């Protein structure tokens, strides 16, 4: 994988659809992330967990992709959750108020447990 790319892997961890991100979330990542999300949507998935565990860099263009996806998910009555953020990026998520719309979890298990309680 080149330095400027993100690798996206989609897997079912019922009841979640986990989108694993690996690499850098910059403007380059738009196609890969958005296509994976839309493909999963077409297959009927409703609860998405964006897993940033493999991500070591996010810039403002990268967050733009996440915000656009977040709004698309809200419009489609889907739930978007986040895990694996580094402390630095989780801090910015909180400071921006994004975690209000995309709850941030420590792990996939924590997200699943939260979902089960909803």
């Amino acid at each position, binding site marked *: 994988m080149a330095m*400027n790319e993100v690798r996206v892997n989609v897997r079912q961890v019922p009841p979640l659809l986990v989108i694993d991100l690996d690499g850098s979330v*910059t403007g*380059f990542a738009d196609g890969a992330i958005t296509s994976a999300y839309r493909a999963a949507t077409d297959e009927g998935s409703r609860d998405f967990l964006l897993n940033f565990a493999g991500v070591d860099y*996010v810039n403002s*263009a990268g967050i733009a992709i996440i915000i656009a996806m977040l709004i698309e998910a809200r419009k489609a009555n889907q739930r978007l959750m986040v895990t694996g*953020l580094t*402390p*630095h990026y989780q801090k910015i998520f909180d400071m921006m108020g994004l975690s209000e719309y995309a709850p941030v979890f420590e792990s996939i298990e924590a997200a699943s447990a939260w979902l089960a309680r909803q």
Partner: protein
Amino acid sequence: MTGPVDPQHFNPRPPHNLPVQATELIGRDEEVARAVNELQRPDVRLLTLTGPAGTGKTRLAIEVAERVLPAFRDGVFFVDVAPLSDAPLVVSAVAQTLGVRLPAGDDERQYLDEWLRERELLLVLDNFEQAVAAAPQVAALVAGCQGLKVLVTSRAPLRVRWEHEFPVPPLELPDAGEIPPLDALARIPAVVLFVERARSVKPDFALTQRNAGAVAELCVRLDGLPLALELAAARSKVLAPQAILERLQGRLDLLSAGAQDRPARHHTLRAALDWSYDLLSPPEQALLRRLSIFVGGCSLDAVEAVCAGDGVPADQVLDLLAQLVDKSLVVTETVMDGDVRYRLLETIRQYADEAAGQHGEVADAGRLHAGHFNQVAEDGETQLQRPDSAPELDRMALERDNLRAALRWSTENGQTQQAVRIGTMLWEAMEHVLAEAESARPASSDPDSATTGTATPAADAAQGARLPGPLSAREREVIVLLARGFTNRQVADALVIAEGTAERHVANILNKLSLSSRAQAAVWAVEHGLLAGGSTQGVLETLPGG
């Protein structure tokens, strides 16, 4: 601080960020002295000034904090909690005010705890009733940090361990049934405040035998609540005390005849606010209502953009704003570069927000507010392409509460483009805030520093952007990408800027650093620690043709 203040023993000017007060604190000598004494006691580590809205808790806290400043070696820091709707943001706001960069997650409070442990400072947390859920975190900080004291203002006590409550009474009142001689009346705190504030709008105002009864009665009817007295006195330019009293009387009677289950002072303040609001012209009323949409204050440009129109003539906004300032409904603050910002006191903001709701204006105000900050973000993008982006990022950081509110509105209303633009700018501003805090902090105090020597597999442009030096934040981001082997086209794509802009950044970088090639720039990035764990040889191998 663990004992009585000895002014000769302490640094006379520890750092502080206390808001400058335009007027003298009146009638609070006793409360100031008592609160200062309380804070000097070794066993008092968390002091909460409690009282209903309009009692003057904030003003008292600032005065007390100024008095005790010399006793806190590492300073006194004021945090307005009112704009923070979420409890977790309180710890973040404290950290930002102190210039501490926090890791996120469960360790946040613990990290701040570690940072504070070696310091002697006073935190002033204002309007804490908005964030009572954060009270246990504040108590935990106090418990863990011997040199930390916290002064809180809140309508209700926090009810946590360590707390000492300090109820703030209303101002001392005259006996309305037996008016004292004029010179004695003129020394009673509530009367002093009314007369002082009346003089600020009508310089020849004086307490006389003729108006003494009305002034005393006004003070009593307004329960000695400083905010209510200020609102009433602000009308002295056009109304004599007797006339103010007559107009307020009906309002107070009406309210006190209403629900009996609420504290009397709630009625008093409500009556003063209703009365003050009703006396405004319709354009002033509309402007006041619309100002309630702003979070954390606003600039004149923002007021003109968001509040003008539909009953508020655009060419009169400044005059109307000045009228609201004169009537003590809007406060001004001078910020960086001498710019003036306008802000509603929290009590008045809540009142104005309620009035906006009754007028069905909230949705429109939200749309206009978000639209304006979308434009601010768009203009900011252009500014960030310039070599020195720090002043613009400082400006955006100042607007972070408004940007966050605009992002929330855009997200909830499905305005994708707008949300993306505002969110992008907010991200840049927050990175900048964290970077500033990082660069202000000695490397040895960073508990994370042990991990930064390990090579990371992908671009560490975020770290590069955070490091200080001759380059702007954007240029540091670009040079890290150059060192990772990105072409100009790839840099442009990664940062969502035009390729020409990327080329200009590269040219500026080479010029600033007196370098002649991208390879030299890459080596410079490694040698200056912009790439975590990168080696010169490794970087050269990634460069095109390297």
